[in-house]
């Protein structure tokens, strides 16, 4: 039997984006031994890509803002299938978490009186996003990283978890491999926090990096946890579309927050014709009012470009489908037009949106201060994920296993508001760390089953065995991954239909078979082909989860839009889709009624109508 290097921690965090780092910081406060395992180098996780800001009702710019408005906005944006308790905690605790970042060295942009500046964003009634130009995510992750490295956390960079190990019902550790040498390691822990982010790599056009293969979702599912609301995948309205090599790269909503407008090839601001009834009362009906809103006029209503992401993305798809798109199959996002309004517009744009300016200049030869950008929707975020208790973030079915951030689900419902992900990860990252530490203090270390370890390691090495065999029917991991991404994009994308999704299920069956035949060559040291092969299982698990959940929800709600059920169905308005591995090993999907909202929250919703 192989003798794997073993690390023992009280609390083990998997993932070092904002959620994982915040969890690790909190857990380490108790003096427990905390380990942090991450796929990349520290500070490179996807949090770094977040641009626009952190949503928190600080009320620095508009004193009418408070947690109640933020809560109501989040629920409205999520079309009321959110976990209301999580939305409540989030809205209440976000301001403290943001101020805490400042005490750890974050340097947010300032108001004239020296407080944290807040900007407008889609679906938020008041300017609510604390930000640093358009690189807020970098500020957040660097602040947590620079604070965290002095907390005594053991960081294991470039390690990938292959499987969760269990002792009876509860988790007791993980098997991981280090990229550099390809060696397996066992990490024992009393409690484990999953903070692995999203699933964006299941799609071809995505703003997500190679890491976002649904690892946490799949690890938890395999360990017996429930996944909920996996049909809700957010397609961000504005991704780059030209040149081809940059397709999918994010263009921050901050562009629209600063006054950017969406136009079609005829120069029409098409969003004015697409305002849904439930947002009519709070949306501008003319360009002048929209501009005044972006300039901070408290009496003005927000421009329709700042409607929720699900809606804007669909309107863009409609424009393109109906032949009013731009030359490369998108629409225009124009911030340069504000030169009609501001004397020093070019400087203003460069100061407010420096990395957007840089990104377009360098990658597309476009100067956004003088010309419009071509954009189209890109896979961005998954609202669905691991089902957790709202207060503690512990999974509902696996004791000792916690989840937070994008891989957990509940706060966002059917559609996430921009800026709510950065606040989500610090609010619930903290809670996950706190309660995982509590669990570790109250429980002994579980045991690790060597046979389980051996079996997991053997399975992880199978692609090499197949690679060593000549003349087999093996194929490369990248080809299978590309085919999966292409299929999910085509058949389970922004607009969905029963027959297409049934075809996707069949396709997934074939891809599962192909994944079993994938072969890799070379040795185990820093071999991306091997890593891609191992990640395939996770990608396939989450793709199947998205497809099966989407088939179950026979209505259109939030990010989930069905061509064959175009309307919202009140019957689906009170249910979550819940997935769990069945006794036969297959994926069981069921609908579960959402617990009724308590009176005090109902009143908030009513008051904010």
């Amino acid at each position, binding site marked *: 039997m192989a003798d794997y290097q073993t690390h023992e921690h009280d609390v083990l965090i998997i993932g070092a984006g904002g959620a994982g780092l915040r969890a690790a910081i909190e857990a380490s406060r108790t003096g427990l031994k905390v380990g942090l395992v991450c796929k990349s180098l520290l500070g490179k996780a996807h949090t*770094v*890509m977040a641009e626009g800001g952190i949503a928190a009702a600080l009320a620095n710019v508009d004193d009418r803002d408070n947690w109640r408005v933020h809560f109501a906005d989040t629920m409205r944006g999520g079309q009321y299938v959110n976990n209301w308790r999580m939305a409540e905690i989030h809205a209440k605790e976000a301001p403290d978490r943001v101020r805490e970042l400042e005490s750890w*060295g974050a340097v947010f942009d300032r108001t004239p009186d020296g407080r944290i500046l807040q900007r407008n964003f889609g679906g938020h009634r008041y300017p609510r996003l604390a930000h640093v130009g358009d690189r807020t995510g970098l500020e957040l992750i660097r602040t947590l990283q620079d604070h965290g490295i002095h907390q005594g956390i053991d960081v294991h960079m470039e390690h990938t978890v292959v499987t969760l190990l269990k002792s009876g019902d509860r988790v007791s550790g993980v098997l991981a491999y280090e990229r550099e040498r390809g060696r397996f390691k066992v990490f024992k822990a009393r409690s484990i926090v999953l903070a692995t982010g999203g699933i964006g790599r299941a799609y071809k056009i995505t703003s997500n990096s*190679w890491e976002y293969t649904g690892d946490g979702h799949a690890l938890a599912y395999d360990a017996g946890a429930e996944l909920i609301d996996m049909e809700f995948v957010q397609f961000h309205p504005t991704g780059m579309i030209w040149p081809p090599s*940059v397709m999918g790269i994010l263009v921050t909503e901050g562009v629209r927050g600063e006054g950017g407008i969406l136009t079609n090839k005829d120069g029409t601001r098409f969003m004015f014709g697409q305002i849904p009834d439930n947002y009519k009362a709070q949306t501008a009906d003319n360009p002048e009012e929209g501009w005044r809103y972006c300039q901070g006029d408290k009496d003005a209503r927000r421009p329709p470009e700042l409607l929720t992401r699900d809606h804007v993305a669909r309107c863009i798809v409609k424009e393109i489908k109906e032949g009013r798109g731009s030359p490369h199959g998108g629409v225009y996002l124009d911030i340069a037009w504000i030169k009609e309004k501001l004397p020093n517009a070019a400087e203003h744009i460069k100061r407010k949106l420096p990395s957007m300016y840089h990104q377009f200049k360098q990658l597309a030869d476009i100067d956004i201060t003088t010309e419009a950008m071509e954009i189209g929707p890109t896979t961005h975020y998954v609202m669905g994920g691991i089902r957790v208790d709202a207060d503690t973030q512990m999974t509902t079915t696996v004791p000792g296993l916690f989840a937070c951030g994008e891989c957990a689900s509940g706060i966002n419902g059917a559609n996430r508001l921009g800026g709510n992900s950065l606040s989500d990860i610090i609010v619930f990252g903290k809670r996950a760390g706190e309660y995982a530490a509590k669990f570790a203090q109250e429980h002994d270390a579980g045991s690790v089953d060597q046979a389980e370890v051996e079996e997991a390691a053997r399975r992880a090495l199978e692609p090499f065995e197949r690679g060593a065999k000549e003349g087999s029917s093996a194929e490369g991991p990248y080809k299978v991954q590309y085919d999966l991404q292409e299929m999910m994009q085509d058949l389970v994308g922004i607009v969905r239909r029963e027959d297409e999704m049934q075809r996707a299920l069949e396709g997934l069956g074939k891809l599962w078979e192909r994944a079993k035949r994938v072969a890799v060559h070379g040795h185990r040291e*820093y071999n*991306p082909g091997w890593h891609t092969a191992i990640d395939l299982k996770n990608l396939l698990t989450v793709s199947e989860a998205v497809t099966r959940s989407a088939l179950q929800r026979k209505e259109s709600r939030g990010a989930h839009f069905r061509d064959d059920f175009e309307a919202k169905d009140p019957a689906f308005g009170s249910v979550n889709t819940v997935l769990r591995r069945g006794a036969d090993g297959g994926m069981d999907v069921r609908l579960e009624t959402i617990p009724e909202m308590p009176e005090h929250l109902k009143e908030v919703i009513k008051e904010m109508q």
Partner: protein
Amino acid sequence: MKQATFSIWRGDAAGGKFQDYETDVEEGMVVLDAVHQIQATQANDLACRWNCKAGKCGSCSAEINGIPRLMCMTRLNALPLEKPVTIEPMKAFPLVRDLVTDVSWNFAVKKRIKKFKPRPPDAPDGSWRMAQDDIDRVQEFRKCIECFLCQDVCHVLRDHHKHEEFIGPRFLVYVAALEMHPLDTEDRLAELKEAHGVGFCNITKCCTTVCPENITITDNAIIPLKERVVDEFYDPLKSLWKFLRPKKY
């Protein structure tokens, strides 16, 4: 379709060589796209780091035609494609495999720098007041994506291997961001002079030239730090005062 040749360094600490790969070239492609294409079709096990592919995470640092750059932000149309494009790993750090180097030294260095220590909050809710003008410079430094290209190009590290005595441009920028932070109350000048080795920098400004975030590393961070160290330790009037002042103080 147009093709181009990429001469990519393959190997590990034990040795290796440049290997040529031909691949299709499309409009708008960056070097990282070419590397990915080669990885997917010809060399599945070609090792390289990357994450965001948008110049925000600083993972894909390499030397392209001999110049330290981010692979994701280097457009192919800015390179002469009639001859092979060479791509090799950073030189200032030990090699792991192919284009991947062991940058762990950087993480160890950062841990040695005294952390942020704010003054007490200005308001009862635990918040502070800072003017935008007072944080512009710190925000410039905090744009750093930790790609370590400045460390790679710095001759003190690259050629003279002073990793034990000099923290390099990245971490001088880091110290500068802390020292110039309006809320910070820590004093790092003694370390700057001794353990951090600010004196090793002789202002050739190579770091500023390669910085993908256009941080004015030398002029805005390193030179002011040098001045502060000089003021603290080498000011003749101050030294005289220290020498003459009554001992009881």
